[in-house]
């Protein structure tokens, strides 16, 4: 069945709440994305990602909640290269943050600072620890 057929649309309708929640939380109109891939080509961290940023955008458009299981959302460091380059004016970093927040708000912490050995804590600057806590713990 071709894309955009009744079947696909119905699927989209069913999964709409997730897409709407991401839109609301990120403030970005994910529907604007036309999958050019500029975000993915400029992203310095794709080597570590399981999904390309543009794939994440597509999954959000389709309302596929499984995108929350992806490693990508935790790898994004909010460097905003995608924000500068997106021809559709989408701040992809905001979408990534919304996805992280959806997970973090369910009593989930991506990392635990308790597990860092003292020698690392002695060495790491506050700026690294504070940003890490803010990005990866709820």
């Amino acid at each position: 069945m071709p894309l955009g057929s009744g079947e696909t649309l119905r699927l989209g309708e069913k999964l709409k709440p997730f897409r709407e929640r991401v839109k609301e939380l990120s403030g970005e109109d994910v529907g604007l994305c036309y999958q050019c891939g500029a975000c993915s080509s400029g992203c310095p961290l794709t080597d570590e990602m399981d999904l390309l940023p543009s794939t994440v955008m597509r999954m959000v458009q389709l309302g596929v909640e499984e995108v929350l299981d992806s490693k990508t959302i935790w790898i994004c460091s909010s460097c905003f290269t995608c924000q500068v380059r997106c021809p559709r004016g989408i701040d992809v970093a905001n979408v990534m943050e919304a996805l992280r927040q959806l997970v973090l708000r369910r009593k989930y912490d991506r990392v635990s600072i308790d597990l860092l050995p003292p020698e690392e804590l002695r060495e790491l600057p506050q700026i690294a620890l504070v940003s890490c806590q803010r990005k990866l713990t709820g």
Partner: protein
Amino acid sequence: MEKEGKMVTIYVMGKKHRVPAGLTIMKAMEYAGYQLRRGVGCRGGFCGACATLYRVKGSYKLQAALACQKVVEDGMYIVQIPFTPAEKKLYDIEKIRPTPNVFVEHFPEITRCLSCNTCTKACPQDLMVMDYVQAALRGDIEKVVELSFDCIACGLCAIRCPAEIVPYQVAQLARRLYSKYILGLSEEVEKRVAEVEEGKFDEELEQLKRLPPEELRKRYESREIRV
């Protein structure tokens, strides 16, 4: 007791009691029949054992106080927090050093501070708790000491902190480091410790031990406090 035995209504863990106005929360609870085993200590505002949270009718504010200090208000909803679950961090003061990262090393959760100031609002000693946590984050030991000097470790800041920090432990580490490495030794203390070790006060102590309780009480009450 206050004039004409004016009474107020308080709710201790939801149970309504009429108690005389003018009593402290602690005395009001005892008046209402509670026998306090935990959540009570010096009764003088120094030991930090009687941490209490309350709301007053008509106000959304969740307030914090020491039960031995705070006077009951009409329509007060009260719960005591006799203990704060907090891990006792172990460190050897002889081995650690007053380095900029010393607080982060022992209390890495201070990096979660939101500067929301909830700790300051909760402090019954009116300390600027958030400011000292922030000073600790940047390794300013002296500032932490200055701002936390009157901390009695009641635990209310730790109970209220959304970042799950235990501020009073951080402050305690600061004061220990400050005494050990920054302030230096006090001649007076050294002298007194030597006197104690030499047995200068042994006889006096023995005499005190043999005194009857009434005499001890009399001496205690008539003691002179010199500053």
